[in-house]
């Protein structure tokens, strides 16, 4: 507190033009660079707005105005096909379920950003409830709605499903691997180390491909399960191997004395772990964990290659028919924007959290 108070008195907030002069127009060279760079950036932004807003065609009824000399964006394709992009092949009259399910997952993500939920129990309860809500709504058979099987799930809702299940399954797996890696038992330690290093050296695509194509050969029929669950498990394992390293960093920040103090008080391994060590580990590991979650959200797009109808695949389908084929750019911009908003806000939140934790430990 003391330190920040002194800095504020030393450096009063400058007025806007004062700041600008100092940071952008301090010398002739700076002025030239600033004018060129801001000019170019401004021009690019203007081009983008001109294309996306000013000269754009918005409604599906006006699709006749697209093309033929009009060089603006043709958002008619989104107007006509957004349901396909967001929900894939989910039955049309059941789309309200898909919408609610997406809202459940997004709400779960937003709520877990609030510090009220930052205990292991609350956080896991929140995610299990959110995930269960998603599954019950999407599948429907357990709450008396028409059953929709996973092969009909698609678009943004499938992307969110993959993301949520990978994080939900991968997080405890990662913790388990991290604990195994620092176990006193050499065999356990060796198994965890080999597994983590192996998975981390391979591209995610190879791991997922193995789960989709190779595992059926190696497992007896009754153990194979659905392709989507095999891929989710493999993805979760991938997440866990990276997350284990994040947790390991957190463990290294805890002084060994804390474990020993716990032992001296006669507490058992699990009590020491859950009541003393883990809360601190989570706190240290939080910024890197958010980073991992963001990366995972981005990486879900790769399942298109294994043949799942996630948002990128449904986007390809959206302009796949003859009449919409010229408007691929609009569709990619739409999907790119959805991804960008998700990932940018999660990333900014991670940055904020890093500062928050730094200031808390001062």
């Amino acid at each position: 507190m003391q330190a920040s108070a002194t800095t504020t008195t030393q450096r009063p907030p400058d007025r806007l033009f004062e700041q600008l002069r100092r940071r952008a127009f301090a010398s002739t060279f700076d002025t030239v660079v600033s004018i060129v760079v801001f000019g170019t950036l401004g021009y690019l932004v203007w081009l983008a707005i001109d294309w996306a807003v000013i000269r754009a065609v918005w409604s599906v009824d006006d699709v006749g105005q697209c093309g033929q000399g009009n060089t603006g964006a043709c958002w008619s394709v989104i107007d006509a096909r957004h349901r396909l992009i967001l929900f894939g092949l989910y039955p049309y009259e059941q789309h309200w379920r898909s919408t609610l399910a997406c809202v459940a997952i997004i709400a779960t993500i937003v709520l877990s950003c609030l510090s009220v939920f930052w205990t292991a129990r609350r956080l896991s309860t929140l995610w299990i409830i959110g995930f269960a809500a998603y599954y019950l709504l999407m599948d429907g058979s357990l709450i008396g709605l028409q059953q929709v099987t996973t092969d009909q799930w698609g678009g943004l809702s499938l992307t969110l499903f993959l993301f949520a299940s990978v994080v939900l399954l991968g997080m405890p797996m990662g913790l388990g691997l991290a604990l195994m890696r620092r176990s006193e038992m050499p065999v356990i330690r060796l198994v965890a180390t080999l597994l983590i290093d192996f998975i981390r050296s391979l591209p995610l695509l190879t791991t997922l491909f193995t789960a989709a194509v190779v595992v059926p050969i190696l497992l007896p029929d009754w153990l194979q399960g659905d392709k989507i669950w095999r891929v989710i498990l493999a993805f979760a394992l991938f997440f866990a191997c990276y997350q284990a390293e994040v947790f390991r960093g957190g463990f290294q920040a805890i002084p060994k004395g804390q474990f020993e103090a716990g032992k001296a008080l006669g507490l058992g391994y699990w009590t020491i772990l859950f009541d003393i060590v883990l809360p601190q580990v989570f706190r240290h590991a939080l910024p890197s964990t958010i980073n991992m979650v963001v990366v995972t959200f981005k990486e879900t797009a790769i399942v298109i290659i294994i043949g799942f109808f996630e948002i990128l695949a449904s986007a390809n389908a959206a302009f796949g028919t003859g009449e919409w084929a010229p408007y691929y750019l609009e569709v990619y911009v739409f999907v790119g924007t959805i991804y960008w908003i998700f990932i940018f806000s999660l990333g900014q939140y991670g940055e904020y959290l890093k500062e928050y934790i730094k200031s808390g430990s001062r």
Partner: protein
Amino acid sequence: MATADQLRRRAQQRKFMIQAVVVAVIFLSIWSAVSSAQTNLTALGITSGFGFLERATGWGYSFSLIERSIDDTYARTLTIGFLNTLFLGTLCIVLSTIVGFLVGSIRDSTNLALQTLSTTFIQFFRNIPLILQVVFWYALLIHMPGPRQAMSLVDMVFLSNRGLMVPMFNLPVTAALGVGLASAAIAALLFWMRISLAKAVILWLVGTALSIAVACFALIPAGEPIVSIPALKGLRFRGGLELSIELLAMIIAIVLYSSAYIAEVVRGGLAEVPRGLTEAGQALGMSSRAIWLQIRLPMALRSIIPPLGNQWIFVMKATTVGVAIGFSDLFMIVSTSITQSGQTLELIAILMGAFLLVNFTLAQLVNLLNARLQLKGH
């Protein structure tokens, strides 16, 4: 009451039992996997083993650095895929490191405009999935005009839906590989000579230029032009170097995505350099360029190298995304081979082995670089 000795022995026994159970479970799983594989493969009528590598493939693919035909054996085709992965990966690593250092250092400048430019670049390209960027650039390139209406730059560089045509030294591919190897060897030599970074970079550029000159002098027959310039002959371009749209889309997407990450790493590294060092340099009357080159960058490099190495490994792994647009990297060759030959287990083992080898080598290189850059006496 048990004595301390008994308790200790009990704990020891428990630990032994747990480990024995883990080992037993692992062996059981392997045994079960092998026996399932045998049943399943027999049912499919596939003979396991690496004999298929000698068979001809009978299918084609988009990109190769060396001569290829559909009569190639699986072994040769897989080698070509591996070379493509290495080629694309190395090229993207070099380019994205250069762009990343540029963008990251710009972020460190005091000029608000340059900071904005760099932040925009980083936030824009980092926050969109790589595969989406790949298919985006591919879609954009494939909708370019045909070769007859190709966009051209001073009639030497042409961009059409067939790819980018650029002027190139009139050398065969093998000579280009030789020049590449010579350049890498020079880099390695300079690395061991422990001279300053700036000198090393300049010497490396000079050495590479020299080896190109030597190759041109030795290999191009008198009378032939030294540089081959692409020109439209009929429906397609002749001469020059053709970069196919698959390769181009991969390079653009990976370099933009990865350099945004590297820029962030570089920015972080520069921000960690203590202010006092810069001030000490100023007190000694050093110019701001000298402060940057001799104090800030060398200090920052020490914290930049480890995450930079991770990013290099990421780039190598990211080449697998090429399968989405039909770039024939190792992953695509392996997955096509699997559909065509059915030798799933062998091919996946080759794929995994290749990536383990490449990433292990890369990690060792980064370790060497790291050791070389550590402060002397620390």
